[in-house]
Structure formats: structure tokens, C-alpha cells
């Protein structure tokens, strides 16, 4: 970095109010020593002051009303959806599962309170994620209920032992990931992970037909 670039960085840091004490002392030294730096600082400060004092225009008449009235009638669609992942449809995962367990990460960023009650069935979140018609002796399911401040809903293991499926139905107020690992003994380990901190919020183990 040249001396001029260094001076320029200090001047801009001062203008933007992010100059540190050490930088300020350095800038003051440069200002005292070099009239060109003083001139540059005054000119750039003048430009920025002019920018900051430019009048902000009022909204054109009727624009607010046009924006609001022009919105679609339908409520925005949130990400509160059920996701179904078949290990069998993922050869790589199935291959990995056979030897070392498969790792599947579904990153979900949902809104609170967005599950459709008509789908949930009497307020039961599980109702959104497993169609009872598909659950018979060979399609038993195991479910982990998630009821955390950050996320609510459930993670269900369904399908057959040969074709297990993980179904998530979650709402959250912040991004979370559902990490599922298929172990060789047919057990699926489920973790709810806070994306912001990478900490595990909840974990459980599911096997077709049982939860433990």
C-alpha cells in the first residue's frame, strides 16, 4: 500500500466514523506533515457532506397506495413444508449407508406458525407428514417430536427397512439443519442443528416401528 493509499484509507475511515484511536493519531500526524493530505481530507469530507445533505425526495403521490393495492391477494408461501427424502433414491447415500452410514443434510429455514392446520389434523403436527394410508405393518414409522424455542414439528422415519424415508415437518424462527445419519443396523440418528452456532439443539435415534 502506498503512502497515498494509506492516507486515503485513514481519511475514509474518519469520514465513515470507523476510525480507531491509533488510526486517528496516525491521520493527525499525516495532516500536520502534509498539506496535500489536508487538502484531500477536506475535499473528500466536503463531497461526503454534500452527499449526506442532499435532500431525500418525498414519495410520489399515490405510490404507497399503488404498492399496497398492487400486492397479490394470496398470503406469501412460507417454507413450512414437509420434505421427504428417500435413501433408496440416493444411490450414493445407500452405498455409503451400507458401509459407514449415510449422511444427509437438509437445510431448512422456515417461518413460525405456518403449518396449515387443515393438513395437520386437529393440531397434530404429525398429521402433515405421514399419510395413514401408507402406514401398514411393513410401513411402520418412528417419530421424533421437536419442540424447541427455535423449531417445532417432527422428524419421522417411515417406509421399510429396505427403503427408509425421513420426513421432516418443521417450523422455525431461524435457520436450522436436520442432519440424519443412517447406521448399518437400520437405526437413523437425527440431529437438529442451529445453523448460526452449529450447535446440536436436539438429537434422537429412530428405527422403523419404534422411537428411542
Amino acid at each position, binding site marked *: 500500500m502506498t503512502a497515498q493509499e494509506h492516507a486515503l484509507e485513514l481519511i475514509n475511515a474518519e469520514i465513515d466514523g470507523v476510525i480507531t484511536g491509533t488510526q486517528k493519531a496516525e491521520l493527525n500526524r499525516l495532516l500536520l506533515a502534509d498539506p496535500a493530505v489536508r487538502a484531500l481530507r477536506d475535499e473528500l469530507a466536503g463531497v461526503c457532506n454534500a452527499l449526506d445533505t442532499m435532500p431525500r425526495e418525498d414519495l410520489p403521490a399515490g405510490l404507497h397506495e399503488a404498492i399496497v393495492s*398492487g400486492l397479490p391477494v394470496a398470503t406469501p408461501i*412460507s417454507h413450512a413444508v414437509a420434505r421427504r427424502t428417500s435413501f433408496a433414491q440416493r444411490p450414493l447415500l445407500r452405498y455409503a449407508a451400507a458401509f459407514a452410514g449415510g449422511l444427509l443434510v437438509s437445510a431448512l429455514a422456515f417461518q413460525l*406458525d405456518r403449518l396449515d392446520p387443515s393438513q395437520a389434523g386437529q393440531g397434530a403436527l404429525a398429521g402433515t407428514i405421514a399419510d395413514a394410508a401408507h402406514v401398514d405393518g411393513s410401513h411402520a414409522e418412528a417419530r421424533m417430536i421437536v419442540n424447541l424455542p427455535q423449531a417445532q414439528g417432527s422428524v419421522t422415519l417411515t417406509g421399510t427397512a429396505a427403503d427408509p424415508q425421513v420426513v421432516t415437518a418443521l417450523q422455525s424462527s431461524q435457520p436450522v439443519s436436520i442432519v440424519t445419519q443412517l447406521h448399518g443396523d437400520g437405526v437413523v440418528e437425527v440431529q437438529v442443528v442451529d445453523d448460526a452456532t452449529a450447535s446440536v439443539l436436539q438429537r434422537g435415534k429412530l428405527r422403523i416401528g419404534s422411537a428411542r
Partner: protein
Amino acid sequence: MNEESDGALVRRTCSGEPRAFEGLVRRHEKTVFNAALRMLHDREEARDVTQTVFLKVYEHLGEYDPSHKFYSWIYRIALNESIKALQRRKPTAALDFETPDGTAGPDRVFDQRELSDSMAVAIMGLRTEHRAVIVLRHFMDCSYEDMAVILELPEKTVKSRLFTARQALKTALETRGWTSE
């Protein structure tokens, strides 16, 4: 009085209270309009862009990632829509701004109105990426960090662009006879 946060208004909107979205519009519409105006230098286009921005925000509200600041998201959409509007213009339209319409005169102090007008023209003479950082910093009050998020650039690059843009504005104003005195 406690103002409801952007995030709370988003959740209410997505929870079936579309009227909550009006709170978001009211909070951000003036900033979005002024940013579009500074990007485009055309009130009608800025008006259309502002309307488009809020429509897109509403339609994609379910995709909003609450781990990010809402205004960063909406400002990014506003910038992108402004740039799209610029790209739709005929190539000659932008040339009007590339050459200052005033000739170099003696150094003098501009009055506020004159300075604002000259500044608006000087802003339009900037390259689009430089104009964007000026608008984000000086018309949307974004920090370096915010700008880096919105532009999806390293903070160092954002600062470099901002400093270059300010110097370009200084040069453009000086050619019109402006001094900082």
C-alpha cells in the same frame, strides 16, 4: 413506543396477516425510492422500480432468511431492480450523464440546490458499481459490513470501490467548478 421489528412483521404477514406487510412498506418505501432515484435519475422509473421491489419482496417473503437483516435483503432487491432498469435503457440514454453538462468554471462555492443538482448528475456519471456503493453508503446508511452482504463482495473490495467512487465524484464536481471551501 416499541416498533414492531421487521422480522415480526414478516412472520405476521406469512401467518396470514397480509396487512402487516404494509408496515414493512411504510418503513422502507422512502429509502427504496430514493435509492432507485439516485441509481436511475428518473422519478418515473424510480417509482416503477419501487413498486416492483415490494411486489417481489411480498412474493418471495417465504424465502426470506431471518438470520439476515431484512433491510439487507430488500436493499439488494432494490439495487438489482435498479440495475435491471438501467440495462433496459437504450445505450444512448446513459451517455447524457457521462459528460458534465457544465463547463469548467472558476472555483466557487455552490449553493445547496446547485450542489445537489450537480451531485445528482455526477452520481449518474459514475460506473454502475461505483454508483451502487455510493447509494448504499450515503442514501441507505449501510455499513461496510451491510454493503458487503448486499453486494456479496468482500468488505475490502467494497471499501476500495467506495473510496474510488468518492474520488471520482470529487473530480467530477471539480470539473464543474466546485471547491470544498
